[in-house]
């Protein structure tokens, strides 16, 4: 039941140049293509700024960077409407940005400040925006997958026509939560697209050392669910494959499993090595030769869709946004003591103790 790699057709509007549709560019116009590049570059520069801030101790805790995988998010998000939902794991900074959250609120969260999207209580792994239907931001591998089915359940329950993209790393595929969720989604026809970002390494364990079956997309067969493999280093391929899945989910309430084959150029988190016992430096260099942003820039230039001036201007604007976000975060206050007990409960009942550590004494400090 796997979907084929049929060439995209319906989306080709605005003949790119001389009235001729450029096959290699999926028929997209310059503005759309620049938008994709802009989003990827924003993600890259933001993560570079994040690494810088982490190195000097401005950001603490676990911090998982997305560098190398930008095309997966930016390509798949191009298939969404603004009111569609996204839920993800803990490598989600770029997804938060791509869903429309400001660099300021994301960076301030990484800094643990009150102006962060989660008021400094979540941190790198727990970014959310109710306004943008960005549902986070979950730190237990696979935990977000059943929740995605629940969001899709709500869409079906209320007879809406939205969809949800659910991101996970390939290592999450071995969790029971993955299999339980795919079964429910297929059984109950829920409009959810599961996107597995296969960067081949669950921390330091290679996929072939973790799964008896190499081809992740085949796992959908067990649930009679459509699946597809996408080139996660190619933003246009990601967009094409996701559009097919989104269309199927929106109109027919059929879920899809997409395996996006990609590479992470960094270590698992900021505290982990880029290479070492689990992969060689050469492997990483080889992967970097397929850098999704450089490849896309090259493609656009090849088809006269991008000039150096345009690229430099775009990059300068993005760097300014990232710089500004870091300055904003730096100046934002840390959450005060009054925040410690705020938001544990949405409803503090009229009767009885909800906190057992003499909250009154702490508040008096």
């Amino acid at each position, binding site marked *: 039941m796997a979907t084929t790699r049929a060439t995209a057709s319906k989306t080709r509007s605005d003949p790119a140049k001389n009235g001729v549709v450029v096959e290699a560019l999926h028929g997209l116009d310059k503005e759309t293509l620049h938008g994709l590049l802009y989003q990827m570059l924003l993600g890259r520069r933001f993560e570079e700024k994040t690494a810088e801030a982490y190195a000097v101790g401005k950001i603490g805790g676990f911090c998982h960077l997305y560098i190398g995988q930008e095309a997966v998010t930016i390509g798949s998000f191009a298939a969404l409407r603004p009111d569609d*939902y996204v*839920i993800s794991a803990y490598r989600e900074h770029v997804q938060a940005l791509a869903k429309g959250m400001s660099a300021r609120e994301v960076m301030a969260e990484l800094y643990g400040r009150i102006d*962060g*999207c*989660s*008021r*400094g*209580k*979540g941190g790198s792994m*727990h970014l*959310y*925006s*109710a306004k943008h239907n960005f*549902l*986070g*931001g*979950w*730190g*237990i591998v696979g*935990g977000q*997958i*059943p*929740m*995605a*089915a*629940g*969001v*899709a*359940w*709500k869409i*079906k*329950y209320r007879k809406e026509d939205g969809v949800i993209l659910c991101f996970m790393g390939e290592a999450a595929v071995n969790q*029971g*939560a993955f299999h*339980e*969720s795919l*079964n*429910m989604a297929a*059984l109950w026809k829920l409009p959810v697209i599961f996107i597995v970002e296969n960067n081949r390494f669950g921390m330091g364990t290679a996929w072939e050392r973790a799964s008896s079956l190499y081809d992740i997309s085949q796992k959908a067969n067990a649930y009679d669910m459509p699946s597809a493999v996408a080139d996660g280093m190619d933003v246009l391929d990601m967009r094409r494959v996701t559009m097919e899945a989104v269309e199927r989910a929106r109109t027919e309430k059929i879920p899809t499993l997409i395996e996006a084959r990609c590479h992470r150029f960094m270590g698992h988190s900021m505290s982990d090595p880029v290479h070492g016992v689990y992969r060689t430096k050469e492997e990483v260099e080889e992967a970097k030769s397929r850098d999704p942003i450089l490849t896309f820039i090259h493609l656009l230039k090849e088809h006269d869709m991008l000039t150096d001036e345009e690229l430099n201007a775009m990059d300068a604007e993005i760097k300014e946004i990232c710089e500004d976000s870091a300055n904003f975060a730096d100046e934002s206050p840390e959450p005060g003591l009054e925040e410690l007990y*705020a*938001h*544990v*409960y*949405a*409803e503090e*009942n*009229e*009767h*009885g*103790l*909800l*906190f*057992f550590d*003499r909250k009154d004494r702490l508040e008096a400090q």
Partner: protein
Amino acid sequence: MAVMTYREALNQALAEEMTRDPDVFLMGEEVGMYNGAYKVSKGLLEKFGEMRVVDTPITELGFAGLGVGAAMVGLKPIIEFMTFNFSLLAVDQVFNSAAKMHYMTGGQFTCPIVFRGPDGAALQLSAQHSQALEAMYSHFPGIKVVVPGTPADAKGLLKAAIRDKDPVCVFEAEMLYNTKGEVPDDPDFIIPLGVADVKREGSDVSIFTHGKMVHVALQAAQQLEKEGVQVEVVDLRSLRPLDIEAIVASVAKTHRAVYLEEGWGYAGIGVTISSLIQEYAFDELDAPVARVHQADVPMPYAKQLEKWAKPGVERVIEACNRVMYR
């Protein structure tokens, strides 16, 4: 007031709240076509249809997580665990997702979900089907926990749980489903979370307890009355939020306290309550707080072994005598 069983009271609570709020739905194993493993959801599928009374595969982690996701975007799921023993497969979603959602999102999202089902031992179900797990659930900030012991409390607390904005765990009991009691007819009858109930007034010693142990405490009180001892039985009903005022008031009255619970003692509810009593009412105590709980073993199958393992009336009487230096 109508007399009905604990089971019927829960069924009424579900039906009334589902009628009142179209966002409320019930999901779990055998809740629909089979009418519930313990018939709590009898007739609801017929009344509300299959989008609102949903039979699930045996996939506790999956459907608990589905509920959490649905609650995150505005629905009000009631997730039934066939027993809370099986919830151990799903606690990642309860503790890591539901309990932390409001906090980790900086207040952006809420998780108005109910997890419910029978808890504790029945008869000879042995180790994996006899666990009282409310202490574990009460440990996590972000979760609320109620343990009704009577039909009226079952109805009032379940309705309050469904209307609450936070995740609430409702611990029922198989051995209580057939017990009968008076239940108010008012469709807006609710029992607010965090309010204890003095099930029997007394002046000599207080037994604090919750859930089905309320009945064991009342039996012990009856027997002690024959010996001239007046026992007060305080049913906490809600473990989080906890009615500390009712506890302090009763200790101030009797000056002697026993905690009775079905689950294990170590890190149990009784330990916490004993600690709170010495923290809030140390000067009122005339004796150390005594605790009665399950033997510190997995529940055995054999009848006599099981009886020894369970906290029974004799042990409660013994504990009351101990704190009264009788």
